[in-house]
């Protein structure tokens, strides 16, 4: 093998490593000790279903609502309720007439709350059901505040004017789920006898079921009520109605009454589907996501969680294991170049690697042991090659971690590349001055990719403990044919095998049998996916009222204490060894594919966790390309651990013709990680989209709908418009690809629809008190009905750069020039664009922002087609071709907690609920102190002190030893900030020079309100 070529060092960066900041107590608790335990009794047979209709102005205040009360499914009562302040007398008459004609009760809001919501919903332990419940609960509330303790970050709603009834607390978790519960009631709940015996009445938290959440958990996708009712084929699907801004009419009421019926039918059907899984302990109100179902399966098998079976597992070791954890690889190799590709995908990647490594043994074990294994691991690594890795017998040996001091080896590197604010992970060359821990799989991948085996300093091999007792068999999906005994069956393997066999039977069936089998295979997919990754790495982050000292267990040094307001609580089945081994093995699979691709003289365009787009070299005949890809696919066949034939690497459906199903040439245009399109090219050189990414677009409201789509752009095939992909995404990609085909990829048309000139709008819910506070200024002086309320929609917009748009100038301080602050425009929700444009304001100052200062869709999308791939070299805006791996020299270890996966929302809203950050390791302080000194020389002590949140006097008093960890932790960010400010300043100056060259010095100076000679001086 020829000597590997290691490029010169291109970056010196702190490397972010996950740390374990777990609870200080020895055993994993089921939660913080509560004053009063929640009742574990399931809901009674009673059900209350309700829905609200609101005004269409920003207040979205209640007009009227509809409800049903059912007992064991039978309709007990149905009715309408209204807000007397929200409807006129004639509308009340309309409501009364409809109610009388249809045998419905008519109540005021107050009556509904007391007689139905609490009297039945709370007192009778009913299930309280709705679609998008947080919104509906906030509409029927009369007051709200911030929730405390466990529900901190959420809202507490007052619904009833009677103090005997509790508040309702709602804490938003994600788009699809929220915790909802009744708060504790005031007063003495315990009888004298109970108090004498020290007994407490359980807290009645209620049984709230959001059908949106339940549907998402069972099918792993988002639904609207209309979409869900169609998908489930209920008897009464949602009606269409559009005249919400008009008066209350019989049609509107009929629509609302139908909504409740539709919600009930969807709920019933989902309960049937949930019951069919054979998990009686999983109640509908606790099915928050796929992970809930996975956990329910594990519990049903009687498996004791790892940290409960081994509560004394050393925290330091957990820190080491977490330091090896990285997510899936998502990278672009060929950027902004049209290449013919064949898209391949690994069959159920995570369950497959779980099965190959035999990780089920760890799941059912009573803890695990570990031993020093340096010599044998070195020998193993020495002999590891394509041949040995093609044998299934090799993979169970990968339950090993290794300590390496990388010298240009390729490893996952988590860093803030190119001065970006968030860290991302890229497989890059890495050099460190001290050792780091990695999985053995990553080490083997490094050897495959460079041809050089990294030097192992130390290695630890893990073995599962004895098999747990007391486990019991279960029937997956409640089907006795799918019985699994956890003690002697690999659950991951069995679930996938069952799923494949059901899929084959489905494909051969038709009609209702086909539908039923499709439902079954989907449930099996959920069972496999839900248990094969996420639950093992689950960590829940809560924000505390004040900073507390936490112990940070890490992979590079001794544990240290750190003050943080973020509390990381491991999930109930937290098992970080499984999580890191799974993702490591998945990265190894991709490395194997990459190695085989190189070996066969091919290229690859991008990879994304479990898929790889293999690219044809320019001069290779297409048939030769197909044959070589087939060879690569076949190579993976021996690694199929299931009792079915074929390779675990599959050629995806996008590679086949939409018309004939035969293989058809497909091309790729990739821009950055997860941002690519796959398309065919017709004989007239027009592109036919097969798969487009909505990455970087999903936060924007569609500028236009399907009905208004440009007629000169092709309608995408329905297979392209899968979940999250909309018509306007396809149109944008069509323009990007068209520009590329025409040979001018840098110039993409953004004038193909007049709607693109409108301000770019993102819609969010005011889902937390922090978000709602932005509207304090707007709400002041408005009646409660007109105020923006919790879970009401808000619109976020973007401001143009200061030069071109309106300046928001802060108050002058003395003789110094007022500072320019970036504008953060928001607006209350309104369906009418003109109203939105008239009501935009800066959320920090409350000052109005004119439309001229707002970015249009065209502006917002101006650089979409040249988004840098910052993880690699040759990935800058206008670069194209093959990206090159960076060579990163690690200057410090930055310890972090759970990584956020909602970066788009955070970036747009400027929220600070980013990942917990535990600062820089002690060992790196000297280096950082030297860096601090260099920064002070460059920009001055005053600016550095301000950036680091301290005073110049204090800054001068620091030494390497006394440098506070919090200051050290902010230093790398400060360096990046000043680099960015420097870059921003340079860009601004460049734009100023262009403006001066275009318009002249004096006109520009006049427009900016500054002296022309000052401007000349600045520009020199």
């Amino acid at each position, binding site marked *: 093998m020829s000597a590997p070529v290691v490029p010169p060092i291109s970056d010196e960066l702190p490397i972010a490593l996950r740390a374990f900041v777990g609870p200080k107590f020895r055993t994993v608790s089921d939660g913080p000790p509560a004053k009063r335990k929640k009742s*574990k*009794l399931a809901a*009674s047979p009673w059900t209350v279903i309700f829905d609200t209709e609101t005004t269409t102005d920003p207040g979205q205040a209640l007009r009227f609502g509809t409800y049903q009360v059912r007992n064991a499914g039978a309709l007990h009562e149905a009715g309408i309720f209204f807000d007397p302040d929200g409807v006129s007398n004639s509308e009340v008459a309309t409501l009364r007439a409809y109610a009388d004609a249809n045998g419905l009760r008519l109540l005021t809001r107050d009556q509904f709350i007391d007689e139905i919501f609490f*009297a*039945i919903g709370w*007192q009778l332990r009913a299930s309280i059901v709705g679609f998008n419940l947080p919104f509906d609960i906030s509409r029927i509330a009369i007051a709200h505040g911030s929730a405390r303790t466990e529900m901190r970050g959420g809202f507490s709603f007052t619904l009833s004017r009677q103090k005997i009834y509790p508040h309702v607390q709602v804490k938003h978790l994600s788009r699809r789920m929220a915790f909802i519960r009744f708060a504790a009631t005031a007063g003495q709940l315990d009888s004298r006898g109970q108090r*004498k*015996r020290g007994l407490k009445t359980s807290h009645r938290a209620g049984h709230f079921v959001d059908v949106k959440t339940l549907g998402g958990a069972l099918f792993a996708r988002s639904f609207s009520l209309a979409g869900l009712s169609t998908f489930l084929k209920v008897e009464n699907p949602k009606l269409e109605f559009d005249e919400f801004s008009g008066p209350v009419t019989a049609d509107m009421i009929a629509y609302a009454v139908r909504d409740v019926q539709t919600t009930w039918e969807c709920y019933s059907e989902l309960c049937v589907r949930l019951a069919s899984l054979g998990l009686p302990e999983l109640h509908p109100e606790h099915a928050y996501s796929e992970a809930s179902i996975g956990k329910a399966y594990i519990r049903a098998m009687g498996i004791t969680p790892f940290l409960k079976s081994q509560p004394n597992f050393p925290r330091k070791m957990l820190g080491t294991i977490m330091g090896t954890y990285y997510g899936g690889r998502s990278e672009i190799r060929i950027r902004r170049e049209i290449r013919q590709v064949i898209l391949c995908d690994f069959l159920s990647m995570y369950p497959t690697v779980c099965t190959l490594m035999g990780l089920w043994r760890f799941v059912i074990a009573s803890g695990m042991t570990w031993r020093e294994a340096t010599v044998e691991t070195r020998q193993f690594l020495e002999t590891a090659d394509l041949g040995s890795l093609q044998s299934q017998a090799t993979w169970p040996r990968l339950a090993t971690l290794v300590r390496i001091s990388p010298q240009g080896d390729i490893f996952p590197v988590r860093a803030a590349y190119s001065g970006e604010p968030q860290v991302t992970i890229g497989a890059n060359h890495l050099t460190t001055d001290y050792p780091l821990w990695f999985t053995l799989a990553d080490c083997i991948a490094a050897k495959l990719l460079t041809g050089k085996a990294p030097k192992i300093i130390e290695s630890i091999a893990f073995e599962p403990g004895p098999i747990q007792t007391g486990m019991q068999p279960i029937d997956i999906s409640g089907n006795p044919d799918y019985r699994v005994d956890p003690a002697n069956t690999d659950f991951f393997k069995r679930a996938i095998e069952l799923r494949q066999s059901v899929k084959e039977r489905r494909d051969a069936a038709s009609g209702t049998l086909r539908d039923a089998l499709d439902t079954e295979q989907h449930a099996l997919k959920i069972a496999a996916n839900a248990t094969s990754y996420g639950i093992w790495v689950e960590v829940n982050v809560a924000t505390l009222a004040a900073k507390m000292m936490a112990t940070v267990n890490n992979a590079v040094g001794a544990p240290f204490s750190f003050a943080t307001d973020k509390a990381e609580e491991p999930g109930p089945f937290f098992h970080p060894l499984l999580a890191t081994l799974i993702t490591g093995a998945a990265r190894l699979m991709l490395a194997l594919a990459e190695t085989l691709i190189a070996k066969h003289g091919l290229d690859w365009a991008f990879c994304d966790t479990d898929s790889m787009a293999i690219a044809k070299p320019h001069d290779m005949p297409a048939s030769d390309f197909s044959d070589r890809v087939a060879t690569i696919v076949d190579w993976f066949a021996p690694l199929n651990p299931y009792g079915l034939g074929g390779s675990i690497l599959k050629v995806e459906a996008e590679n086949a013709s939409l018309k004939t199903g035969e293989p058809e040439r497909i091309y790729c245009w990739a821009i950055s990680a997860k941002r690519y399109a796959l398309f065919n090219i017709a004989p007239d050189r027009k592109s036919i989209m097969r798969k487009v990414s909505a990455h970087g677009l999903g936060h924007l409201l569609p500028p236009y709908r399907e009905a208004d789509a440009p007629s000169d752009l092709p309608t995408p095939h329905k297979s392209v418009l899968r979940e999250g992909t909309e018509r306007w995404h396809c149109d944008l990609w069509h323009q990007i690809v068209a520009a590329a085909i025409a040979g001018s990829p840098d110039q993409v048309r953004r004038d193909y629809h007049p709607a693109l000139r409108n301000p770019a709008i993102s819609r969010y819910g005011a889902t937390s008190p922090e978000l709602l506070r932005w509207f304090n200024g707007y709400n002041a002086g408005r009646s409660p009905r007109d105020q923006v309320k919790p879970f009401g929609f808000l619109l976020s917009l973007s401001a143009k750069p200061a030069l071109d748009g309106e300046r928001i100038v802060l108050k002058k301080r003395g003789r110094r020039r007022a500072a320019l602050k970036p504008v953060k425009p928001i607006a209350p929700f309104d369906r009418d664009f003109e109203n939105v444009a008239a009501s935009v304001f800066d959320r920090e100052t409350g000052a109005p922002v004119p439309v001229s200062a707002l970015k249009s869709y065209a502006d917002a999308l101006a650089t979409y087609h040249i988004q840098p791939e910052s993880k690699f070299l040759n990935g800058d805006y206008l670069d194209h071709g093959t990206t090159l791996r960076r060579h990163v020299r690690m200057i410090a270890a930055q310890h972090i907690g759970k990584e956020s996966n909602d970066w788009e929302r955070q970036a747009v809203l400027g929220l600070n609920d980013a990942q917990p950050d535990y600062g820089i390791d002690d060992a790196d302080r000297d280096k950082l102190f030297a860096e601090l000194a260099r920064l002070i020389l460059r920009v001055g002590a005053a600016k550095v002190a301000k950036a680091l949140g301290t005073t110049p006097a204090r800054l001068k008093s620091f030494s390497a030893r006394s440098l506070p960890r919090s200051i050290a932790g902010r230093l790398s960010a400060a360096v990046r900030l000043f680099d960015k400010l420097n870059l921003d300043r340079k860009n601004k100056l460049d734009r100023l020079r262009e403006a001066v060259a275009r318009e002249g010095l004096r006109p520009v100076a006049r427009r900016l309100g500054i002296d022309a000679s000052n401007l000349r001086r600045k520009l020199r």
Partner: protein
Amino acid sequence: MEKIELAREVRKQRRLEKLKTDHPRCGTCGERDDRSLELHHVVDYGRDCATVIICRNCHRKVSDDQRDHPPFDPSADVLLDRIGHFLLGLADLLRIIIERLYAFGTALIARGASHEGAAS
């Protein structure tokens, strides 16, 4: 819902909440009506929080039996004392069950004899 109906249903749900089950049943006689079911502490004097669901009739019987248990001894070993009293409480419950089994068995034999008589 009528007021009376609601009040009745509220009382029922409160009882079920206290009994911590939607399908309560007396462990000794099999009574299912939740209106007459209660929680009985197996160990008297609140020495232990273990409870069983029992109907009011059976509760009166076993509570009366508990009055004959040895009195509280502050100097006794806590664990042994608690386990001992638990076993006594359990024995009281089993005594009722044994009586019922005896009565049931006798009744079955009697019924069997009358059938045989009828057959012959």
